[in-house]
Every structure is written in C-alpha cells, then in structure tokens.
C-alpha cells in the first residue's frame, strides 16, 4: 500500500498545477495511527511534506534517545499532540561511575515546556536523567491527566518527591522507580488517598526503607486493576502472602526476601496464596532464599516467562528444582552462584529460553572463599546452555575464564544472537587454555550471527577482532569495548565497516586522534560516541568539532594536570547546538 502511495505522489510532484489530492489529510492521519514505532514514524515523515505534517499531527508518543540532541521547544513545535514521552539522558557508562555527578540531563527544562505545550501529558519514561523533588512536585501538579511515571537509573530525587506523585496524581496507573538512586527519607511516601483506585503497576523494589505496610495492603486491596507489584526487601513472607491474597490477578510479581519469617502462619497458606496467582508471567525479588520456602512458589511458576533471580544467591540444586516448574521460561536472569551445574539445569529444563543473563555475585572478589566453592560460571556452563536452548538470542555473561573454542561452539549452536554481551571480568585475559587473544571468539560471533545488533567484547583483543567486526557485523547497532585493541586501526575498521552503528562506547583502549577522525563521516548517523582513557588529545577533538559543526564534541575535564590529553570525550549529533547547561568540567569544543 505504501509503495502505491509513493508512486501516486511522484506523479503529483511532476505536475504541481493539476495536483490531485489522492488522500485527504484527515484520512491519512487515521491510517497513520496504526504506525506505531518511532522508527516507522520517522520513515513516514520523510516521504513528503504532506506526510510529514500528517505524521506530526497524529503522533502521540515521542522517543528521544539523547536528551541533548534536540531541545524541548523544538519537540513542542513539531509535535502538537504528544501524550507520552520517553527520554534518555546520560551516556551509558555513567552507570559505572565514569561520568561525574552533576553532569546534566536535568528533566526540569523539559517539564516546563511540556506543562504549556502538553498539558494533557499522560506518560513520562526516563532513563539516566536527573530528576529533583521539585521536578516531581511540578510534574504532579502540572499534568492533571498524568498516568504513568517510569524512572530507570535516574537520580536526584528522594522519597519526598515520590510523595508528591502519590498525593497529587489522581489518575496514576503506573509508578516504577527501579534502579534509581533515590535518597531514602523514609517510608511514608506511599500515601495515595483512600479514593484512589487506578493503580496498575507499582515497582519500588530497589528502595531501601520500609514502606507503611498497612497503607500498601489497603492500596493493593482497592486497586482491582493492579497487574504489576514489585516490593522491596522489607516486605516479609507473611506480608507478601497477605498482598497476594488481595491481588491474585497479578501478572508480574517482585517479592521481598524469601526466607524465614516466624510470623508466617503456615507454609501451606503461603503455597495456597501462590497457587491462586494463575496469571503470573514475571517473577523477581527473592533476595535471600531459604530452600524451605522455595517450594511455596512452585504453583505459580507454570506460566512464568521471565524469572529474575539476579538478587538471589541461589545454588545449582535449588535452581534446578525451581526451573523444573517453569516449562515456559523465555528469559532468565541469575547470579553466578548457580555455577556451571546450574546452567546445565537451565539447559535441560528451559528449552524455550531466549534470553540469559548471568551476573557475578562477587565481582570485586572480596570473598576469599565463597559459599559452596564459588568459582562462578565458566565456558562449560555457557556451552551447556547453548546446547539445550537453541532459541537463545540474548546473552549477558560475566565470567572469569573463556576460550575461543567455547564461544565458537556456542554460536554454532545458537546462530540467532541479536545481543551478545560477554564480560570476561579479568582485564585483557587471553583464552585461558591456549593463551591466545580472544579475537577468534568474537570473529566467530560476527561471522555466524548475521542478525547481531548489540555486541560487548572483553578479554585480550588485538585489532584482528575489530577487523572481523568491521567485515562481518553489518547489522551491528551498539558496540561496547573496554581494554582492547592494539592500534587506531581497530576502531577504524569498525567505523568503516559497520553501516548501522548507532552507539559506540569505548574505554581504556589505545585508539587515538587518527581513529577518532576516521569516523568523521559516521558520527552524524550515530546517536553518540563515548571514548574515555584512550589516546585522544584536545587538538584531535577540536579538529573534529571544527570539521563537523553539527556534532557536539564534549570533553569532560576533571583535573588540570594534563592539558593536552582528552580524558573523556562524548560526541553526539544535535540539532539543538551546544549545551547551554554544561557544568564547568564539560567543555564543548
């Protein structure tokens, strides 16, 4: 249909005087309602001016992957009818403390513009933005139809800000504050009025303080549409049981600790509460698990598709028992306390598995001897999973040792990887059996997995690995590199060879100005480039900035010692020009 339209329009362009309007705008707008993803909508807007206008009037959700790539005024000018905004702020490496505090990405200027342009705004989803209590209060009071707030990996606010949201947002359906750095001033923020019943999703799993349980229980009891409930570590088993009894319709549950609670009336009551939850597809939390109580969960596991055990130091035997109850599992997150044996259990129980994430329980090796041996997972666990789970397409794997042969076997078994993130935690570690670099491992990944969109590499890597990536990874969109490569050539291969690259983040690699400048033509088609602790100088960055005026080339300078070296560089395309809110340590060149 779309192609036919295009041809009709081509004809129209040729004879502007006798233009036949093939499609009135109103009809086009009605059709465009069905075009949902922001990528499709961007494509639609590029067809011609009419389509651009129809699209901008009918768009209700806008996604901004880099809050500094555009200004809020520009967004408001182009899209008059937005109800839902997704905004991402800081570079991803800020999650690992590589970006100094007070760097920016403050939501407030956006809220001020939205308050006048979109008074009926309903949803705000933020990632890595700074959000203050004042902003939350402003949000709560400015948008009477406000429904959904999701703050992932955000910082700058406290529980007081949350109190504003619960007090003033009468139509709230979703409040999700996962993984955010919240200043915890106590648990009284959960003070929705008694008349409030619209909540559908509540996630406060990472909050440290105890919430008022009575208030929570009453809230859960009166919100009949509640589907998602993720509580924190302070909600014990008996309390959880009471919540479940009130909300058997839950589809996603995050529990508190699953360990001894002497207030629990009986094991059987707990089990019966779980067996009434017939619609659970997602389970997380658990924190500590006592194997005594784990079986209470089993009746609720039949329909589980996502199991997040990444906060639970589970051993392999317990995991095996649990997995046997989860035949439909598609996504599994675990800690490496399960070890290779646990992964073998995954391989034998979870044939439908599509995504596996294995996190390290003790990444900084502070335990000399860990419970139960504690060597984490190795290459053999990885291979085992690939043998049992042919549908695997997403992996995040933290380990201390790996071999080229094992990775080659894994991708031979599972050629459909779209996301392959392997983190060998020991920097620059070679193949531990052959002592060779891990080049061939990632070579195998890119050669075999033609659908690969995201790749994170680790271990000892020479330029060869990057040659492979540049040659084969034609669908690659995101690449993360740390402590790898031998020369500028490595980075050059990637920039020249990966046409779909959008995000490139590099730390501690021997890439210098020549590598940076080789990407001159590329950066405008990418969202961003991050390079820290590489061999960049201020001169090189200045040259880039001069040649590419539509890029923001920012250097983060935290100390005055070495004026020539550019320690942290962040390059991104922007139509908004240089940042006006840059702190003193961010230099825009």
């Amino acid at each position, binding site marked *: 249909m779309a192609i036919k339209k295009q041809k009709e329009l081509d004809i129209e362009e040729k004879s502007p005087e006798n233009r036949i309007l093939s499609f009135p705008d109103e009809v086009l707008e009605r059709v465009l309602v069905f075009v949902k993803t922001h990528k499709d909508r961007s494509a639609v807007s590029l067809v011609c001016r009419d389509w651009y206008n129809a699209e901008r009037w009918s768009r209700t959700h806008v996604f901004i992957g880099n809050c500094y790539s555009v200004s809020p005024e520009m967004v408001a000018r182009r899209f008059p009818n937005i109800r839902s905004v997704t905004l991402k702020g800081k570079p991803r*490496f800020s999650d690992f*403390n590589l970006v100094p505090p007070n760097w920016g990405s403050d939501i407030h200027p956006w809220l001020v513009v939205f308050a006048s342009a979109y008074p009926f705004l309903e949803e705000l989803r933020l990632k890595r933005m700074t959000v203050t209590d004042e902003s939350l209060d402003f949000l709560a009071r400015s948008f009477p139809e406000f429904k959904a707030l999701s703050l992932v990996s955000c910082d700058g606010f406290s529980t007081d800000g949350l109190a504003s949201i619960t007090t003033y947002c009468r139509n709230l359906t979703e409040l999700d504050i996962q993984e955010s750095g919240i200043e915890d001033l106590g648990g009284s923020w959960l003070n929705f009025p008694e008349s409030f019943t619209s909540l559908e999703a509540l996630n406060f799993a990472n909050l440290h303080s105890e919430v008022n349980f009575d208030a929570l229980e009453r809230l859960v009891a009166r919100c009949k549409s509640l589907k998602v409930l993720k509580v924190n570590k302070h909600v014990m088993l008996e309390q959880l049981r009471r919540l479940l009894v009130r909300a058997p319709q839950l589809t996603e549950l995050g529990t508190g600790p699953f360990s001894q609670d002497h207030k629990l009336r009986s094991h059987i009551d707990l089990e019966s509460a779980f067996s009434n939850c017939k619609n659970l597809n997602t389970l997380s939390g658990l924190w500590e698990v006592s194997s005594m109580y784990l079986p209470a969960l089993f009746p609720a596991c039949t329909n589980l598709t996502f199991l997040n055990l990444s906060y639970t130091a589970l051993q392999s035997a317990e995991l095996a028992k649990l997995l046997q109850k989860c035949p439909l599992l598609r996504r599994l997150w675990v800690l490496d306390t399960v070890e290779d044996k646990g992964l073998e259990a995954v391989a034998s129980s979870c044939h439908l598995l599509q995504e596996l994430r294995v996190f390290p329980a003790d*990444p900084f090796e*502070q335990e000399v001897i860990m419970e139960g041996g504690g060597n984490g997972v190795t290459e053999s666990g990885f291979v085992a999973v690939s043998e049992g789970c042919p549908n695997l397409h997403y992996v995040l794997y933290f380990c201390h040792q790996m071999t080229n042969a094992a990775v080659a076997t894994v991708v031979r078994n599972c050629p459909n990887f779209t996301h392959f993130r392997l983190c060998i935690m020991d920097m620059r570690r070679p193949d531990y059996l052959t002592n060779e670099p891990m080049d061939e491992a990632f070579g195998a990944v890119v050669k075999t997995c033609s659908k690969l969109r995201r790749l994170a590499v680790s271990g000892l890597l020479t330029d060869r690995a990057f040659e492979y990536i540049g040659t084969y990874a034609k669908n690659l969109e995101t690449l993360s590199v740390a*402590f790898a490569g031998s020369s500028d050539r490595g980075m050059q291969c990637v920039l020249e060879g990966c046409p779909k690259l959008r995000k490139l983040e590099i730390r501690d690699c021997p890439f210098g100005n020549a590598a940076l400048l080789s990407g001159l033509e590329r950066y405008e088609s990418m969202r961003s480039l991050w390079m820290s602790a590489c061999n960049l100088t201020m001169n090189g960055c200045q040259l880039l900035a001069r040649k590419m005026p539509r890029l923001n080339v920012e250097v983060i300078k935290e100390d005055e010692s070495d004026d020539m070296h550019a*320690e942290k560089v962040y390059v991104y395309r922007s139509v908004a020009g240089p940042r006006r809110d840059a702190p003193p340590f961010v230099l825009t060149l």
Partner: protein
Amino acid sequence: MEVSVSDFDNLKATELRLGLPGIDAPEKPAPVSPRGSKRALLKANEECWPGTSKSLEADTSNQEAQPMAKAQVIGWPPIRSYRKNSFKARKAEVEAAGLFVKVSMDGAPYLRKIDLKVYKGYKELREALDNMFRCFSTGELSGMEGCNGSEYAITYEDKDGDWMLVGDVPWEMFISSCKRLRIMRRSEATGMPSSP
C-alpha cells in the same frame, strides 16, 4: 549497606599483592586519577596476568592458595551501582547470620533447619515448630511447661552431647548451648533429665 571494615582490613593485612602500594579497593568510586597514575594502574593489572607478561614474580602455587589482589579500576567490571549495593548488603547479612540447628521429628521423612536467632523466646519457637511439623502430628507439640496430653515432646542436644527437655533454662542460655532439636514421641521422653 554498611561495609564491615574490620573484616576487610584483616583480609588486606594478609593478602598477597602485586599492585602498586597505595592502590586500594575503594567501596565508593574513587576520584579519577590523573593520566599518569592510571597508566600505572593498568600496567599493574597487566603484570597481574601470567602469560601476557614476563615480569610475574608470584609462583603459580601461591596463586591457587590466595587469589591475586587486582588493583581495582573505576567502573570495572561493568556492574551497576544498585547491584553492587545489594552485594554489600548481602555480605553484611551473611555475617550477621544466625544460629542454625537441625530439627528432626520422629516419624517425619525429612529434617528441617531453623535459625534460633530469629525467635524471641520459647513460645515463638514452639509456634514455629508447630507450623513446620503440623502435617506430621495430630495434636499440638509440647515440651514446655503447662502443656499436657500431647503426643510429642521437644528435646535438644546440648554442648555436652546430652539430650534435654526444651524449656527449662533461660532462653539465652538455651540458644547458646543448643546444637540440634528433636521432636520425639512423649512415650520415649519420659525419664529424660532436666537441666541441672
């Protein structure tokens, strides 16, 4: 989220290190070091790795015994802060771990393990045991003062290896000397000595 600093210090005092002196493992993100020392930091890491460097001093047998302390670099491994914080919390919880004792019951097919530290007194212990083993008994458990006519008695093995009736001594004394619990049939419990 408190770190048990004293444990950490003790560990540090005995560990083998190849890192440069003064490089510690910070709990909080360390301030960004000037380029020079960061290179040194990285070099220290390279030296840590056998096979890639010739300058390794420590022999491999030492490596087995004590994992090499790696000079820590900011943001590596790439784990997000909220996960790191939960590890610290778990570590603290494990260290404050309780007094776990096995509980067996005559006629029950398997044992249980409980943490005596969780209970404030005999009444709570009794209730918990009742909850746990209810399916195996027809009536209430006893072993405490004032409960008669029940099938079972709760007994414990003390530090000296003797089997005693639960409930005679003050609670604190009980939990410090109790090694395991056994719920036995009343008929077998008669004639059992009380604590001296």
